[in-house]
Every structure is written in structure tokens, then in C-alpha cells.
């Protein structure tokens, strides 16, 4: 096993990537190993100081005009620390990773302003609204010389929520599906209709839906034959009634999908791709299913905050992280599919052929993107609040 403390590795990002792809150590192992090796360097470089004022950089290769900090607002377990550390090593910019459980939480900070966030990774449905309110800036592609549009999967580029990708570049995409433990759930669940039916009857007290209006209310709408994005009052009323009746029979309404699923407190659950994969990796009987009757397809994209304090560093980071090698390393780490085709080619075979991570095209056809109108619909929000407030 290569000595992770080998000083050359710190200056050779490519070597790290190749090592990561070739070795496929367990994530935890690699984190600790990389951490111990780079710990001292990163700890010194990564010193956040009060109120966002400048600190000192201990990394060689100097900050120069990139500054020494970059604030990244992203999702849990989304980035390979080794990839981030390599960036820090070569540019001297320490990356301060802020972890959020939902796009809404990111929006709360961004919308309030003066949050110090530079790069933020929202889900697709929020982007339209953010652009309208000038919360994120149009991307300056001149500062992204390594970005080659041709490398990217056309299914995920140039979508309605950001035509021409003026403000965002996709990172990972994924689905909202049904995760279940087949050792306890004897049926083979294939549709949302099945899921919601079983949750209220056979598996009462063992089902979980996420605390997310779009994913849960939307999936329930699909189960009843409506569109994921419905804001029709009659349809919403029907869905609300169904969910209100179901709520007392659920184990929880919570976006923390994995702990109860692992502990078998829940046997079936609304879940996102990464959850399905991660639980599946540790448990033989865990299944993740993209429903046949439809569901949510989502994309998380890189954007730059309009009031970002470290714009130069932000673009340097994006230019680095969007290259196929880095993208592939990240995919192998977080096990969410990447929107860059070149990256998909570079990814290890067992990841590439994993149908949970990369569902076949026909499965994707039934899915829809959530739209901004649904995300910002006061009626949907109120319906969801009423469901949560019901007895």
C-alpha cells in the first residue's frame, strides 16, 4: 500500500486521482489516511477566522491573488476530501465546506445575504428563482478554460431551468426512489402506488417519507396518478388527504433516511440515489428502486453566489473540479452519478455498471424534473405544513 504520507502526493493531484480510481479503498479508510497525511497542512491552512476576515496561509505555492479561503455550500458526503485537498495543495486556497441538508437551507443563507458563501450547489428547481432574484451570478466561462461542453451529457445540460447553462453547471444528478430492505419486505415494490399503499397497511409504523415537499408530496401525487409538479387545487387536496391519513401510520417524516433504514427501524422509505447506494453497499438485502409510475429526477449544480467574497478562487475551483478526472474521483467517492460523460467513462467499472447509480434510459424516461413554480408555490408549502401539523 502506498504511503499516503509521501510528500510527492501532496503536489501531484493526478497521482492521487489515479490512486483513488485504481485502489477503491473504502471511503472511510481513505478519508482517514488522506486526513492524517494532509491533516497538518490542511489544519493550518484551513483556519477560519471570525467575520470572514483574512487569515494566514501556510501552504506552499502561495495564495497570490486567489486569496486563501473558499467557502463551499454543499451536501453531506458530496465531495472527496482528497480532491479538495489537492486543490488546496496546488493553489493555497483552503476550502471551507459548509454542509446543508436541503436546498432550502442553502437558500435561507444565500437569500439573507452576506453569508460569505462563494460556491453553492443547489438543486435544479431553485435555480430559476435564484436567477430572478440575482442571488447567483452569470458564470464567466472565460475563467473556466477547462470546461468543454461536448464532454457533458446532453440530457442534463441546457435544461428549462437554466437554458444555455448561463448560471449553473451540473455536478451530480439523481433520482428520488424507493429504498427497502428485502429481508423484511417480502413484496417487490415497483411503483409509488404500491409504496404508499403498503406504508399504510402491511408495513404500518415501518415506513418513512422525507421532510421535503417536492420529493414526498410529489411522489404521493405520482402514486395517485398526478404529475410530480401538480399545483392544481383539487389534485393537491386529494394528495393532502391521503398523506394526512397516512401520517400517523408512518415511522417518521424526516430527511434522515439512512439511520433508521440501517437499524431496521424502517423497512421501506422514500430515498435519494446516494442513500440507496450507501445503504446497499453495507447491507446485502437493501434495494433501491426507481418507480415505474414516475418520480423525481434532479440535478445539483455548481453556481457562484452573487455576493461571493472570493470570486477568483471560486472560478479556479470550478475550473479544477469540473475536469473529468476530478469528477470521476468525486463520483467514486459519493456514488452519485455525474453529468459529465467523460467522467463516467473514467469511473471504475463496478460503479459505472451499477444500475442504482446509473439507471437505464428507459427508467429515466418516466421521471420529471421538479419545477420552480412548484418549489415556490405557496399552496404546496401550506399543504405540506398542514400535513405536518395534522394530528
Amino acid at each position, binding site marked *: 500500500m502506498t504511503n499516503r504520507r509521501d510528500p510527492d502526493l501532496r503536489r501531484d493531484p493526478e497521482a492521487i486521482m489515479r490512486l483513488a480510481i485504481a485502489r477503491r479503498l473504502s471511503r472511510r479508510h481513505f478519508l482517514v489516511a488522506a*486526513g492524517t497525511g494532509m491533516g497538518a497542512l490542511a489544519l493550518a491552512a*484551513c483556519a*477560519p477566522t*471570525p467575520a470572514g476576515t483574512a487569515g494566514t496561509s501556510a501552504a506552499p505555492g502561495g495564495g497570490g491573488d486567489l486569496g486563501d479561503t473558499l467557502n463551499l455550500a454543499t451536501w453531506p458526503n458530496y465531495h472527496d476530501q482528497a480532491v479538495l485537498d489537492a486543490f488546496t495543495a496546488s493553489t493555497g486556497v483552503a476550502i*471551507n465546506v*459548509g*454542509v446543508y441538508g436541503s436546498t432550502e437551507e442553502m437558500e435561507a*443563507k444565500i437569500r439573507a445575504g*452576506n453569508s460569505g458563501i462563494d460556491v453553492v450547489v443547489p438543486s435544479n428547481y431553485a435555480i430559476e428563482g435564484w436567477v430572478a432574484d440575482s442571488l447567483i451570478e452569470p458564470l464567466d466561462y472565460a475563467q473556466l478554460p477547462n470546461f468543454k461542453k461536448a464532454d457533458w451529457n446532453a440530457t442534463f445540460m441546457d435544461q428549462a431551468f437554466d437554458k444555455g447553462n448561463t448560471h449553473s453547471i451540473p455536478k451530480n444528478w439523481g433520482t428520488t426512489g424507493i429504498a427497502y430492505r428485502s429481508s423484511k419486505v417480502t413484496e417487490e415494490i415497483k411503483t409509488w402506488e404500491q409504496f404508499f399503499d403498503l406504508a399504510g397497511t402491511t408495513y404500518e409504523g415501518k415506513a418513512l417519507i422525507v421532510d421535503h415537499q417536492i420529493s414526498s408530496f410529489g411522489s404521493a401525487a405520482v402514486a395517485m396518478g398526478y404529475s410530480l409538479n401538480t399545483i392544481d387545487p383539487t389534485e393537491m387536496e386529494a394528495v393532502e388527504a391521503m398523506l394526512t391519513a397516512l401520517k400517523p401510520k408512518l415511522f417518521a417524516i424526516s430527511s*434522515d433516511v439512512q439511520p433508521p433504514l440501517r437499524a431496521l427501524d424502517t423497512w421501506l422509505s422514500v430515498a435519494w440515489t446516494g442513500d440507496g447506494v450507501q445503504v446497499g453497499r453495507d447491507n446485502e438485502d437493501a434495494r433501491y428502486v426507481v418507480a415505474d409510475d414516475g418520480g423525481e429526477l434532479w440535478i445539483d449544480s455548481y453556481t457562484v453566489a452573487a455576493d461571493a467574497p472570493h470570486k477568483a478562487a471560486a472560478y479556479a475551483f470550478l475550473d479544477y473540479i469540473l475536469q473529468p478526472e476530478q469528477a470521476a474521483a468525486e463520483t467514486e467517492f459519493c456514488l452519485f452519478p455525474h453529468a459529465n460523460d467523460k467522467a463516467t467513462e473514467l469511473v471504475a467499472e463496478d460503479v459505472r455498471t451499477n444500475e442504482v447509480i446509473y439507471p437505464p434510459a428507459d427508467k429515466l424516461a418516466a421521471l420529471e424534473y421538479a419545477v420552480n413554480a412548484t418549489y415556490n408555490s405557496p399552496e404546496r408549502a401550506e399543504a405540506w405544513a398542514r400535513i405536518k401539523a395534522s394530528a
Partner: protein
Amino acid sequence: MTAQASVPTPAPATSPVRAPAPGPGLLVDVRAGKRAARIERIGERLVFVYTGLVFAFLFLPIVIVVVYSFNAGRHVTELTGFSSQWYTSAWSDRFLMNALRNSLTIAAITAVLATIMGTASALAMDRMWPRARALFELLTYVAIIVPGIVIGIATLIFIVTALDWLNPWLAFFTGGSSPDLGLGAGSVIAAHTLFTMAIVNVLVRTRMRGMDRSLIEASEDLYATPWRTFVQVTFPQLVPAIVAGALLAFTFSFDDFIIAFFTSGQDQTVPIYLFASIRRGVSPEVNAIATVLLAVTILAMVLAGVVYRRGQRRSGPSAAVAGDAAVAGVAMTTGDRG
């Protein structure tokens, strides 16, 4: 008619106990007395057992946390043996160490600010017009009682609104070379100081109420200047409360989640990190962290207790030690609401 049956109802005035009506009520029936005594003894024993059970209830989760921090296994379902691996892996978790550094800095600064301002305001309140004091009391109490979530949200909104207005001016006055102020440790410190300063204020004022005024009056009678009176008479008596207040301020700030959650911008504190960990399916490192924090806090409190005790012996009646500790405890747990 036995004495038992003729317990008088208390008069509505000051004294709750009044002499019973004259008559044979003063005769005590010996057998009834013995029965009463036995019932009382059983009752007392029951209450003691009950108290013991409550203490067991209070400590149950703590024991779980400490025990599992040394558990070699990952899952709480198996107790597989003794291991300190979680302590070492927690130490090498850079995000955790980052958050720890933030938390310590914020808590230290908060404690200093809260102690100075809380003590100063307590001294001032002693000499205020009653109306002003009443207003201050209300403000103090509101600051303590307002739920963290309201403070967190309101502070977030206010600070960003204020900074929106302030930053352009700062840039104007410094020719564009000032850093853009934003949410961060500073805003957390501001919100934490608000609350903890009120707690220090309450503690110091409580202590002042129990203080021996005659010493101060004697000092003034001996023509000591107000400053000397303060330094040599008042302050030494207040030191225990001030120290207790400082420690409480530190602990509260370190432990707060909800206010930091809203106001911290991009800086993570330990509770924020813990919350994220719990939601993701936490590793037992969390138990290790908690045990270390617990040990450190116990040490700090024991230290405070020793200082306090010594202060007590020097200055006032010792019976109030536990009472003041209780007040301090209230103040502390008021803050520790997550």
C-alpha cells in the same frame, strides 16, 4: 377528637401556623401518634427511593454515552469490548477539529464580554431608579427566556439587514479596502453574549442580595472612596458569582445549537457538526466527543466550586452555598436548551 383531626387552617395573613382552638385538641393520642410516625417513616423511605430513581433516570443517557464511547463495535447493538479508537479518530477528523476551534474561540470571547457587561449592569442596577431597574429586569428576563429559535432568526435577519446598509459605508470610508463584513463567528458571539450577559447579571444580583451590606456601610462610614469600597469590600464578595457566571457563559455558548445554526454563516461549531452527524447516521466518535466535553465541564465546575467555596468561607454565611449553586444551575440549564 385527636390533634390530628383538628389541624387549623392557616390565617390569610403572614404566619401560616396558628395555635389550634382551645379544648381537648391538645391531647395527643399515643397510638395515633405512633401510627402517624410509622406512616411518616414509610413515606420518607418511599420518597428517598423515588428520588434515587429520578437520579438514575437523569444519568441513564449519560452512562450510555460514556460506555459506548469506549465500545469497540460500531453499532449500539453490540458491546464488543473496550477500545479508545473513537477518541483517536475524533481527534484526526479535521472538520471536527475545525468546529472545535470555532466553538472554543466563540465561547471564550462570549464569556469575557458577558462577564464584564453582566457584572457591570448588575452593579448599576443596584443603584438605579426603581422604574429603570424594572425595565432592565424585564429586558434581562426576556433575554433569558426568549427561545433560541426566535433569537436566531431575528438576529440573522437583523444582522444581514444592518450589514447591507453598513458595508457600503465602510467601503466608502476606507476607500474600498475594508473586508466585506458578513455572518460568521462575530454574529454568533453577538447573539450568545446577549443571553449569557443576562445570566451573569442574574447571578451577580442574586449574590448581591445575599451580601452583607453592613460591611459596605462600614467602609463608607470610614470615609473610603466608592472605588476603594468596591475593590476591597464589594468585589471580593462577588467574585464567586462572577466566576460562576463566566463559566456558565462559556458552557452555554459552547453548547448552543439553535442560535448558531441560524447566525453562523459558514463557520461550523461543534453542536452544528454534531447535529449534521446525528442526521447522517453518526459514528461513535460523537460519543467520544461528548465524553471529553463532559469531563472538561465537570473539571471546570469542580474548579468553580472550589473557588466559590473558598470565597464563601471568607465572606458570608455558608448555608447559602448550595442555594447559590442551585441558582447557577438554573441559569445554566436555562441556556442548555439546544
